[in-house]
């Protein structure tokens, strides 16, 4: 048994020894220990180093609010920095290291910062490092030079770069009542609601239910409070309408009573079970929330209050009662309220010597005097601690007479020898979630604390959260909350019998002892009382300015320890009451949340993959795939040793010479059905569709309401009231929403249904001089000759026994056809076409060849319809019907949209026969050193096998007017400059004779 471990008591399992490693040294603890309790039991007092001064720090608390004892947990290569030792349950093989120190925790060179003391006061960064106005270090250079070192000195733990192998999961939950916190109030609330048959979730951030009952040492219904809590939790487990969530922090209270919680499922396990997530991220939509989140004990602010060995009183009580650990042998207490006396007695019972109770209050109640007497502690009422002694561990402290009213110290300082000093500055209800929910806290003078605001969402408070610190009050609160949460009014219940020590919850309004030396308000960030007063002197008096100027409350404990003391010191400096200084509004998260848990199922799988019916065929046949949004499409079908350019040139060439086939299943397809479908199309397209004959298709252009180009595609009339609209792959979703909006909101009188059928159809575009012959060879049930299947005609037939729909339209500029069939038959039909094409030299081609041929034809895509171009800019004004209004028609002629200097679509030919680059700009006057006066840019480019030249499409000021003129490509980013000729965007077969055949 280790020196500091009592041989009985607590909920640890002394029969189970657990081995772990801290800073390389092996230690043992017991099942049920936290890293903090186990290290304390081993006599460790030094846990970490502070942020700014690198001061040695011990453990301050026993819970989630711990600001000092932060460590990095190692799981192989994976690092988890900045975890409070008080929240880590030890397991065999646990490996943790301390942080922010070099070379070691006990010898840290960063500690020299302490010498800088007063210079490194709040806001000092803002006042210096501006550097010289002239010379090599002018501008930002000097600061950046200094910053380099400042950054390396700052920061806490080190994050790893090894990918985390753990899994994270999301869980959506719905319930009638969510109870947050499982102290006596929460337990009873959950029980009351559960007994009423409501769906209940009980969340507790610690591993065990019961909260303060686990360490209060009280007796409830004639059994130790801890047993009572265990029994009550056990009773809940029996019901199937309640879900118990231990190790679960409810960290966010969002709109609509939606709460976010983090369940640490396997952090306490040596190895997680198969498929078990490390963290589970609960999104809980609760009809009502019961907030039973308890309260935090506040530190007192006095010189040396950060020395290892100085601890919160209740924390020591917890270590003794819950873990059987004594934080010291000779313990003293320093308090402004009664709660510390119970701690004194508990520690005495656990075997420590209580050397003194220093109380700022001149008068003490007889009960407190009795308790102190029972603890055999000297009472120093009307006294205060003015200094602590020792190096990296407390050896003693000094006290002086203290006048509570004036704050004045008097008499000689007396030294007291102790290895542990406990402080209690009163209690602050944990109102974070209520504040997140949207309302402002209210100051309670008697309790010297902010109490929960009026509910702005559906929550009910209970217990210490309400400032009701007595267990009996908490239990009554909890029951009422649980019942009213489900709208029930239960029969009056018999008061539980509770044996607890006396104590007045009202603290004396003392937060700071002013004496020589650094008195810490925010321990982790090393914000001292002097820093707060400096902020006041410099006018940073609003609580937000205080926070931002001194970084008070911005450490990992988010001000759980420092908020109220900081406010109090500012209030005193201003001579105002605390509420007039204000409180900062709490925002999510209540405590830090692993980013992995928030990414949840998307960690390692950020977006689903969208696959065409022929996907596997493409892979099996050597396609290199290209991610187009969520889709995967073949980029090229490369032969061994081919470069991308060689591959697409081969594919495009072969297509123009014989035939090629490409998967176009990704095109957006929308079934548009109903008596008003044609009328609707006339309104959404710039050109006329009501005149389209059944069995024919037409190319259409859509504008946005503001008159700019939106999307294009062909729409097929399959029946009088039945159209199939195709959109670009990228805009399929946008167009669908666009159509739905107009049908639902603008023209509800139109009888049209739109349905996404993108995935219903597999599509293959087959084009080239031999395309018709290939179809003729495999299509049955219809002819495909010019008479039966003219340009933009549609026929139905079969390929390899599968019904297909064939439309003769061309993107490549060749005689081409789009063949559609049920997606489930996609590969079957594709293979049949490829087979039929073999004798004709058919090639499969990908996006690169598709792009090449469309550039040669001068067709536009998303690179040109980029949300800033008009139909005119793209020379599509021939599609703007003057016979009817359509979306965008009223606004497309506004001055800015017809200005002469707009960017217009043109073609470019590289006169130096070198490759062009997408995104290169075009200039009239070449200036490689200082490029300027761009007249436009390249939107797409390729080597054109048809022309044997490097060509591009571009958007150029003046556009058409420049056809035939010369300019220069200017691409300083890639140092590519050279002469070009500006030509029409229709490079290839401008009169379309090839596709019309």
């Amino acid at each position, binding site marked *: 048994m280790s020196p500091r471990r009592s041989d009985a008591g607590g909920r640890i399992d002394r029969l189970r020894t657990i081995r772990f490693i801290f800073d390389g040294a092996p230690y043992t603890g017991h099942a049920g220990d936290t890293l903090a309790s186990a290290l304390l039991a081993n006599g460790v007092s030094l846990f970490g180093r502070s*942020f700014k001064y690198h001061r040695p720090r011990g453990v301050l608390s026993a819970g989630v609010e711990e600001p000092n004892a932060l460590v990095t947990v190692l799981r192989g290569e*994976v690092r988890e920095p900045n975890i409070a030792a008080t929240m880590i349950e030890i397991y065999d093989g646990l490996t943790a290291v301390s942080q922010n120190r070099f070379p070691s925790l006990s010898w840290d060179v960063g500690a020299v910062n302490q010498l800088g003391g*007063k*210079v490194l*006061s709040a806001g000092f*960064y*803002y*006042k*210096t490092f*501006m*550097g010289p106005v002239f010379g090599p270090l002018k501008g930002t250079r000097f*600061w950046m030079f200094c910053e380099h070192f400042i*950054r*390396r000195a*700052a920061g*806490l*733990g*080190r*994050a790893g770069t090894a*990918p985390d192998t753990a899994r994270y999961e999301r869980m959506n939950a719905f319930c009638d009542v969510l109870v947050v916190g499982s102290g006596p109030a929460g337990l009873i609330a959950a029980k009351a609601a559960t007994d009423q048959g409501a769906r209940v979730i009980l969340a507790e951030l610690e591993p065990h239910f019961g909260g303060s009952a686990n360490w209060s040492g009280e007796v409830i219904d004639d059994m130790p409070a801890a047993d009572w809590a265990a029994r009550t939790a056990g009773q809940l487990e029996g019901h199937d309408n309640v879900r118990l969530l231990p190790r679960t922090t409810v960290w*966010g209270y*969002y709109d609509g009573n939606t709460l976010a919680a983090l369940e640490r499922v396997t952090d306490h396990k040596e190895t997680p079970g198969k498929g078990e997530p490390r963290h589970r991220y609960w*999104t809980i939509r609760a009809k009502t929330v019961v907030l039973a989140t308890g309260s935090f004990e506040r530190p007192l602010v006095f010189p040396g209050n950060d020395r290892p060995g100085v601890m919160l009183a209740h924390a020591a009580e917890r270590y003794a009662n819950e873990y059987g650990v004594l934080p010291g042998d000779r313990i003293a207490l320093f308090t402004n309220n009664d709660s510390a006396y119970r701690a004194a007695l508990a520690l005495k019972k656990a075997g420590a010597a209580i050397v003194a109770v220093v109380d700022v209050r001149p008068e003490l109640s007889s009960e407190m005097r009795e308790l102190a007497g029972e603890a055999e502690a000297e009472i120093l009422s009307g006294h205060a601690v003015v200094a602590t002694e020792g190096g990296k561990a407390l050896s003693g402290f000094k006290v002086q007479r203290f006048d509570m009213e004036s704050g004045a110290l008097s008499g000689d300082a007396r030294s007291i020898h102790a290895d542990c000093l406990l402080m209690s500055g009163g209690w602050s209800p944990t109102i974070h979630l209520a504040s997140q929910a949207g309302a402002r806290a209210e100051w309670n003078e008697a309790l010297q604390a902010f109490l929960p605001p009026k509910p702005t969402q559906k929550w009910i408070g209970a217990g210490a959260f309400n400032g009701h610190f007595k267990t009996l009050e908490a239990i009554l609160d909890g029951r009422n909350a649980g019942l009213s949460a489900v709208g029930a009014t239960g029969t009056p219940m018999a008061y539980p019998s509770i044996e607890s020590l006396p104590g007045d919850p009202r603290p004396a309004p003392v937060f700071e002892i002013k004496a020589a030396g650094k008195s810490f308000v925010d321990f982790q960030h090393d914000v001292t009382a002097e820093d707060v007063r400096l902020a006041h*002197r*410099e*006018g940073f008096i*609003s609580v937000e300015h205080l926070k*931002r100027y001194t970084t008070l409350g911005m450490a*990992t404990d988010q001000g759980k320890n420092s908020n109220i003391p900081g406010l109090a010191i500012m209030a005193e400096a201003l001579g105002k009451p605390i509420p007039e200084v204000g409180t900062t509004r709490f*925002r*999510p*998260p209540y405590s830090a949340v692993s*980013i*992995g848990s*928030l*990414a*949840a199922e*998307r*960690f*390692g799988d*950020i*977006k689903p*993959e969208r696959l065409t019916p022929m996907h596997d065929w493409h892979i099996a046949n050597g396609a290199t795939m290209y*991610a187009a949004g969520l889709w995967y499409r073949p980029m090229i079908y490369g032969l061994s040793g081919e470069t991308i350019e060689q591959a697409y040139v081969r594919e495009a060439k072969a297509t123009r010479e014989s035939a090629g086939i490409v998967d176009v299943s990704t095109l957006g397809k929308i079934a548009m059905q109903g008596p008003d479908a044609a009328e609707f199309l006339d309104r959404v397209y710039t050109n006329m569709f009501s005149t389209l004959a059944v069995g024919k298709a037409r190319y259409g252009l859509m504008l*946005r*309401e*503001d008159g*700019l180009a939106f999307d294009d595609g062909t729409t097929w009339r399959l029946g009088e009231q039945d159209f199939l609209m195709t959109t670009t792959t990228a805009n399929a979703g946008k167009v669908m929403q666009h159509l739905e909006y107009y049908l639902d909101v603008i023209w509800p009188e139109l009888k049209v249904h739109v349905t996404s059928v993108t995935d219903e159809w597999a599509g293959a575009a087959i084009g080239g001089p031999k395309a018709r012959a290939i179809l003729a060879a495999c299509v049955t049930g219809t002819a495909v000759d010019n008479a039966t299947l003219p340009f933009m005609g549609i026929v139905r037939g079969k390929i390899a026994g599968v019904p297909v729909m064939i439309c003769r339209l061309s993107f490549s500029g060749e005689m081409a056809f789009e063949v559609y069939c049920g997606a489930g038959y996609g590969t079957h039909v594709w293979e049949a076409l490829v087979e039929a094409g073999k004798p004709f030299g058919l090639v499969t081609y990908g996006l690169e060849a598709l792009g090449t041929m469309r550039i040669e034809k001068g067709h536009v895509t998303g*690179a040109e319809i980029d*949300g*800033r171009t008009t139909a005119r800019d793209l020379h599509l004004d021939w599609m703007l019907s003057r016979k009817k209004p359509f979306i965008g028609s009223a*606004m497309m002629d*506004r*001055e800015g949209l017809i200005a002469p200097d707009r960017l217009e679509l043109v073609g470019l030919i590289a006169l130096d026969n070198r490759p062009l680059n*997408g*995104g290169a*700009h075009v200039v009239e006057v070449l200036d490689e050193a200082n490029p300027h006066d761009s007249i436009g840019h*390249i939107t797409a480019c390729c080597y054109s096998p048809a022309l044997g030249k490097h060509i591009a499409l571009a958007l150029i000021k003046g556009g058409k007017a420049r056809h035939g003129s010369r300019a220069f490509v200017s691409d*300083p*980013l890639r140092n590519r400059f050279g002469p070009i000729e500006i030509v029409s965007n229709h490079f290839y077969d401008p009169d379309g004779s090839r596709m019309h055949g």
Partner: protein
Amino acid sequence: MAEYSAFSLLKNALTGNKDWKPAWRKPDPKASYDVIVIGGGGHGLSTAYYLAKEHGITNVAVLEKGWLGSGNVGRNTTAVRSNYLLPANTRFYEHSMKLWENLSHDLNYNVMFSQRGCLNLAHTPAQFDDLARRGNAMRHLGVDAELMTTADIARLVPALDVSGSARFPVIGGLMQRRAGTARHDAVAWGYARGADRRGVDIVENCEVTGFLRDGDRITGVTTTRGEIRAKKVALAVAGSTGRVMQLAGIDHMPIESHVLQAFVSESLKPIIDTILTFGMGHFYISQSDKGGLVYGGDLDGYNSYAQRGSLPIVDEVMSEMLALFPGLARVRMLRSWGGVCDMSMDGSPIITTGPLPGMYLNCGWCYGGFKATPASGWCFAWTIAKDEPHEFNAPFTLDRFYRGLVIDDKGQGATPRMH
């Protein structure tokens, strides 16, 4: 007031820091001023500063309804860059960049502007071409920009997943070296101190409740601290523009107010030395000098004046973060907050005279406001002083929407939440 310097720090340290004076006075408002600037945020304060410094107009009051810098200047992710696509934006933000580069000296206040670069990642060839188009546009206006290969990027940001196996592999990026980050609060405080030293009255806790009119003309404001008259009344209240314009009887504007969330992780030793943006979603990240990872993503996507975030965006942002940095799954998000953005109809700001006589309007900053702070104030001061825009803000008129002269860097049209 005393200059700030290493020397003054030492001197005060010796006297126990007892002699530091307030960074700015806390005057009561006078009955009238030459210019009232409504809004004690970055833009309002810089406007006052440049009115005094560049135009000698010092009889100026800045009215702030709450505490100084309580708006977006204290709620952003501190990125400063001028890597825009369209010339009007690039020219304006480059002017801002130049002011940033000397701001700490100019203000005698270290705003910690750290030019650690801003890198936009590309994940497809098409995106790479778009970045090239933008980078070249910048270069043709004399702004620094360079393309980076995946190898360069891997060297610059070792923690980044550049493996080809990523769902959206990094294939390159566009870097602006002169971009960087600054200490956001310090910018507000530095401008406040600078303006105050030149005689500007900075009046906190003074909410404007209405406008004084003489016919159409704005002649002053009513506030929670009384009536204040002024020859010129300038609005710099981005985030609250809708509310304040309503007080002037104008309830329709080409603006929607949206919440943008930002996040900070716990302090870490340096791991990301630049500003980085994701190409397949909306995500940006940098690391503060204190070691916190500072990052954000998309707007919540609906009108709001509440500085409250919504959960789906939190999840979205974190998953994008881990798509780039799978090693950071165990790092923890420490704080989140929401800022209210003026989202304009083309994603670009408005800095103009009017719309009412005697009124001057500065709004529509979307989420580009912080980096714009110096140039916004500089151009607005010019516009107020000379009653005409400077060439840098001439394109940012209120009537450009009607005239079809939008400046739409993202090409999204009149859908504010998409900009």
